[in-house]
């Protein structure tokens, strides 16, 4: 399309120019660029729904979901539930990262820290987040405390593991260079260890947020009184398949938003700029 628009001799007809600029616009916005691959899936979905193989009640088409989306938006339910879910995720992820990074640094830096903490970390990681739900329900009941615990728990381990891995992968010469330039241990931690481990810390953050997001939805289904997970489970109870599907789509889209608005900019501002990981081709 670029070629069409750029030909100098004859100005292209208006509709070609319109298509050209539409394609360029789509191409320029990362959100819509990732939408492209979903077009065939949507078409297939619409086709199957239209063919009427399954009853409409059990297998609504894309358009029904769009209508339900509009409905839930105007009623204010979806925005409210979304806010609840995102707030829980932010709270839990924040706490998980705030404890996970120092723990990972400790395990990665200190032999004693590693010896004492590693077996415990491995044990609790193996227990898994959802396995905590029964005991949490007894202790904290159905509410924010239980859900926050589950998310913190899920986010914590990937962050700890990856931070420790990052610390251990820092070349010995970086620390030596800093020492022979006069850096004291505390400055080495801040100036060398943390930035050196950052690529791994970001990986841990990405995995942690991904797992945490899924754990949150699961927790909301089981213990929630609001949130996207609750919305889906509640809709199932009421036989509203459309809303169940809508919930699933919202979950997927939200991940793109979290990734594109938080993680990707963080990577671009740090590890990609320093050239320690390959740049993405998406601007």
């Amino acid at each position, binding site marked *: 399309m670029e070629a069409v628009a750029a030909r100098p001799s004859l100005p292209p007809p208006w509709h070609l120019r319109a298509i050209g600029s539409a394609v360029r616009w789509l191409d320029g916005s990362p959100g819509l660029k990732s939408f492209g691959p979903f077009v065939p899936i949507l078409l297939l979905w619409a086709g199957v729904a239209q063919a009427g193989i399954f009853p409409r009640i059990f297998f609504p088409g894309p358009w029904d979901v769009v209508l339900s989306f509009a409905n839930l938006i105007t009623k204010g339910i979806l925005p409210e539930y979304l806010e609840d879910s995102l707030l829980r995720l932010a709270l839990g992820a924040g706490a998980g990262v705030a404890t996970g990074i120092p723990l990972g640094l400790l395990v990665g830096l200190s032999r004693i820290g590693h010896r004492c903490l590693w077996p415990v970390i491995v044990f609790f990681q193996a227990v898994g987040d959802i396995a905590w739900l029964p005991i949490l329900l007894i202790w904290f009941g159905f509410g924010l405390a239980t859900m926050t615990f589950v998310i913190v728990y899920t986010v914590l381990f990937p962050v700890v593991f990856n931070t420790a891995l990052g610390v251990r992968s820092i*070349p010995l*010469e*970086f620390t*030596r*260079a*800093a*020492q*022979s*330039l*006069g*850096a*004291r241990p505390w*400055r080495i931690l801040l*100036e*060398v260890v943390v*930035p*050196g481990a*950052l690529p791994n810390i970001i990986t841990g953050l990405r995995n942690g947020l991904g797992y945490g997001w899924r754990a949150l939805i699961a927790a909301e289904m089981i213990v929630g009184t609001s949130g996207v997970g609750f919305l889906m489970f509640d809709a199932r109870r009421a036989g509203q398949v459309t809303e169940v599907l809508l919930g699933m789509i919202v979950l997927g889209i939200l991940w793109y938003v979290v990734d594109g608005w938080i993680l990707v900019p963080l990577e671009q501002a*740090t590890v990609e*700029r*320093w*050239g*320690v990981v390959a740049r993405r081709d998406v601007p």
Partner: protein
Amino acid sequence: MADLVIRKLGKTYFDLYAGRHVTAVADVSLEIHTGEFVSIVGASGCGKTTLLNMVAGFIPPSEGEILLGDRQVKGPGPDRGVVFQGFALFPWKSVLDNVAFGLKMRGVPRAERLRIAEEYVALVGLAGAESRYPTELSGGMQQRVGVARALANSPELLLMDEPFASVDAQTRMTLQEELTRIWEAKHPTILFVTHDVDEAVFLSDRVIVLTRSPGTVRAEVPIPLPRPRSWGRLVEDGRFKALVARVLALVRDSDPPTNPAGGQERSG
């Protein structure tokens, strides 16, 4: 500024894989005077890096002592700047911030340290590249940053471990000429380690030849070539060639006599 005095220095490692002790450096005594450029040459594996790492304070000696002025070397410190073979630049810092790092660690105010860093970036011929990141630079440019970073901190002694071994031959010659130019301008005390005899003779006031495992001092060769030195002038110079031939003979001769029992390595 202070002289470096090394007395009866030795290092024995425990080789985990072989399950035995290996003496890498044995009974090394030498002195380096303030403002002197001294190179240590020897075959690969003869203990050059081990020796330099002990002087830098990165590893403790098994025997002997290292004195810088009247202070005993106990660990790494800003009085001994190090230039690494693999550059060891911080990839998350710009060229200028890398060069200013030592000053920052020592509490020099920001404006002042950036001014000093700029001066050293210019000294190594990188003016204009201050805001670039190390990964954007060629190997030769990265090592210029490495030299500037160490020098900007005004160390009493500059330690360089095969600093030009990982750049291409053309760049290496340029870097060698620039190092002599910087040394002639500022006269830092330099202990330079290399396996490249031409490089050692070209750069140094004095060349110390190590024997092969364990490394001990075999000979010291003064290099009375006039300065400023450049490859253009020295490459056909008879005295340069004669000195290279002499040092080379000492390095090659230092191969241990064939000893099937390998008993020499068990001395630790």
